[in-house]
């Protein structure tokens, strides 16, 4: 599935660009992110807990940044393996342009997502909506963090965990 959207962020482009490459900020923006380590050059290692339909899993995976054209565009790609739940792959092409005479930044994104294993088997019909929600939430969190400094996003697994309350996982059907 693919989707496109944009957000206008009240921060200059250099600030937004830098934030995209900060693992601490990314960790707070990726819904369900427990942990993110590494660097933009080497790639990030991430641990993300998510629930798609009946399948809840902790994904361990890599996030990498490519096609970097500072400070205009880059591609963020992630691939996570969720054990028995299968795998999820996704990417976002991000483009930054100046608005409001440089005081603000328009962040445009094109997101692509692909799942496999039990996630596809049980959750396929939910994936499009789920991926859109994840992307919207990521960029909403990102906007909050960049605009508001520290307090935009909640704890990694709390309100930014995709809005799903913890429930017993049904992955063992």
């Amino acid at each position: 599935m693919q989707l496109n959207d944009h957000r206008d962020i009240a921060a200059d482009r250099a600030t937004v660009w830098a934030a995209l490459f900060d693992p601490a900020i990314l960790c707070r923006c990726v819904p369900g992110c427990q942990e993110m380590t590494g660097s933009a050059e080497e790639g990030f290692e991430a641990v993300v807990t998510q629930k798609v339909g009946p399948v809840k899993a902790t994904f361990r995976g890599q996030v990498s940044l490519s096609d970097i054209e500072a400070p205009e565009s880059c591609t963020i790609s992630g691939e996570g393996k969720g054990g028995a739940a299968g795998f999820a792959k996704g990417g976002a092409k991000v483009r930054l342009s100046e608005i409001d005479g440089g005081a603000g930044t328009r962040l445009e994104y094109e997101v692509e997502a692909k799942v496999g294993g039990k996630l596809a088997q049980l959750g396929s019909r939910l994936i499009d909506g789920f991926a859109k929600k994840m992307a919207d939430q990521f960029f909403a969190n990102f906007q909050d963090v960049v605009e508001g400094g520290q307090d935009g996003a909640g704890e990694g697994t709390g309100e930014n965990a995709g809005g799903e309350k913890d429930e017993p996982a049904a992955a063992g059907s």
Partner: protein
Amino acid sequence: MPKDTGPEKTTGIGASPKRREDIRFLTGRGRYTDDITLHGALHVHFLRSDVAHGRINGIDTKAAEAMPGVHRIFTGADFEGVGGIPCGWQITDRHGEVMQEPAHPVLAQGKVRHVGDPICAVVADTLAQARDAAEAIVLDIEELPAVIDMKQAVQDGATKVHDDLTSNLCYDWGFVEENRDAVDEAIRNADHVTTLELVNNRLIANPMEPRVAVGDYNPATDESTLYTTSQNPHVIRLLMGAFVLGIPEHKLRVVAPDVGGGFGTKIFHYAEEAFCTFAARQLKMPVKWCSTRSEAFMSDAHGRDHVTKIELAVSKDGEFQALRTETYANMGAYLSTFAPSVPTWLHGTLMAGNYRTPLIYVNVKAVFTNTVPVDAYRGAGRPEATFQLERVIDKAARELGMDPIALRRKNFITEFPYATPVAVEYDTGDYNATMDKLEEIADLSGFEARLAESKKRGKLRGLGVNCYIEACGIAPSNLVGQLGARAGLYESATVRVNATGGIVVMTGSHSHGQGHETSFPQVIADMIGIDESMVEIVHGDTANTPMGMGTYGSRSIAVGGSAMVRAAEKIINKAKKIAAHLMEASEQDIELKDGKFSVAGTDKSVAWGDVTLAAYVPHNYPLEDIEPGLEETSFYDPNNFTYPSGAYACEVELDPDTGRVTIERFAAADDFGNIINPMIVSGQVHGGIAQGVGQALMEACVYDENGQLLTGSYMDYAMPRADDLPFFSVDHSCQTPCTHNPLGVKGCGEAGAIGSPPAVVNAVCDALQRAGHNITHIDMPLTPSRVWTAMQQSGGQ
């Protein structure tokens, strides 16, 4: 409510006693494979591929092996030097070459080829421990492009499912190849050619009981036992023992106890069965696997999945002149046990249907894709043949402006035996009789009134009628051997009469819903004249039944029942000798009636029990002429298939606002030859129709372009439910007995699933055309979305 018809009889052949097995099934007293818990059994969890195609670069099991309760983790490397899963049928293609046959390892070696392909097997004390440990296995699998679409798979440069094969084409089969030019010529010169391109949708069988395997090994005796959910335990013993694990038959016992539905998908030998047997020998402990429903979706062999173009040449006055078909048949990633035979010999040979079409050519291209293997599913090849033929005839009737029933009647085969141009000889049938019966029970003359009534409510209504023929009672061995079968297809029975007269029949047929335990005793009771309660049926265990080929292809009563009759005839002949001795009469004068042997023309008689007792307490006994005891075995190998046939009618109502189709009436007039138990026959037809309606209206297995199985649960794979179906009007009073088996029976297990899909689609097309839509075909399943979309695209009203 329409009622089944059937002769009123209370006992023996033709009676409908209630199914004795239902007492245990309905009260929770059945004993299924999962009920077998051996002391100390370990549990296995298979780690399966979640990509459709990938190269295995590494498997790190170290951390997993250290997990609690883990006994051992097996990978493909443990099966080097062990045989792969064999294929039981070899097809020779139109150029005289044998099919391409890939290796099928028990656990993946080098590559994974479909989502669900087993990579590792974790054996642990508990299932939870095995599953936890599987999570700790680190797989390094490089995902490769997957081939899913059959036509793309056979293009030059397509990704190959098997690197060591020349392409993804398993075989390119032509039948009858010698007819090809004549068929082409006839179609070129025909008055009229009706062409139809269609898909026979891929299905997942979904028996209520998922597959289970329990392997056991006794190191003291070197004997292995496999308990498994199989329709044919002897076949599994032969395939697994001889081709996979190298265990001789006298050291290998296969037990298939109560089995909760098979529908074809439990015929085949599966990797999990071989694994549990193998692991039990390695670990010297019982090993158990019980499929989850999710695993069943991605590891049980799927069914159908044909893409077909069919052309029917018809003369101006409606005579069929020639038929040509081209079919792509999906094999999936590996060849399942009987997969190659389904689109060929079980499909091409049926293309004549009920009609005198003089020239027929069938081309089938079997294709490997990165999907679960595809094999026989209720009807196996014959539903695919019937669907395309009956759909193209319906389309031809409309193009020619003829009544679909009249066009069929005009072309019916009316003289028997009839040798078709596709290599089979129908022994008996009366297609006009079943069509007459159908017109009566379906109340076709009342259709117009019902149509008007539907219209009043704003609904469209349509009527679909079709015929079918099937070749079942699958055998004969010498014929199937010529056609590429790597097994014989006889059946066996041992009839053991006990000293006090009770009888145990050990049959090679297997009952997994068919009711053999009820119907087989009816035959024996009828032959001897004793009560059915004196006869017990034993099946499903290679240790106490003679070598049998099992149950599929509607063969149990036709082949297995015939073996039982032959064995019972031997019993009766011997018992007559004993009776003659007891009554000091000539053997030729002995008559058996109502469980009593009497001397013709006298009032002398001895009871069945007197004779059986004498056989086992042979004090007064002709020991110099015959042996004591009363036990006989027969192997029966018929000289032809049986050819059940029938005519089906479906009436649908269609909501023009939503495209939703509902089945309002369904009638089936079948000719199954002689009938043993009409109630059981009706039940088989009911179940078959339900599955056929499921295929026609709701079931479809869907893969995405990457080979992910999107219909992997009941959220996305729609099964028919009781409220999707009307009361069926079923009749089997048209009976042209089979000429070559002793019971004159033809088999009824698959008919409903063969005859019903075209009836439903014909009915929907009829409803749409009556409403002015120029719609000649919609591919199954006819979901509301597909029907509604077709309506919007067609214009109409």
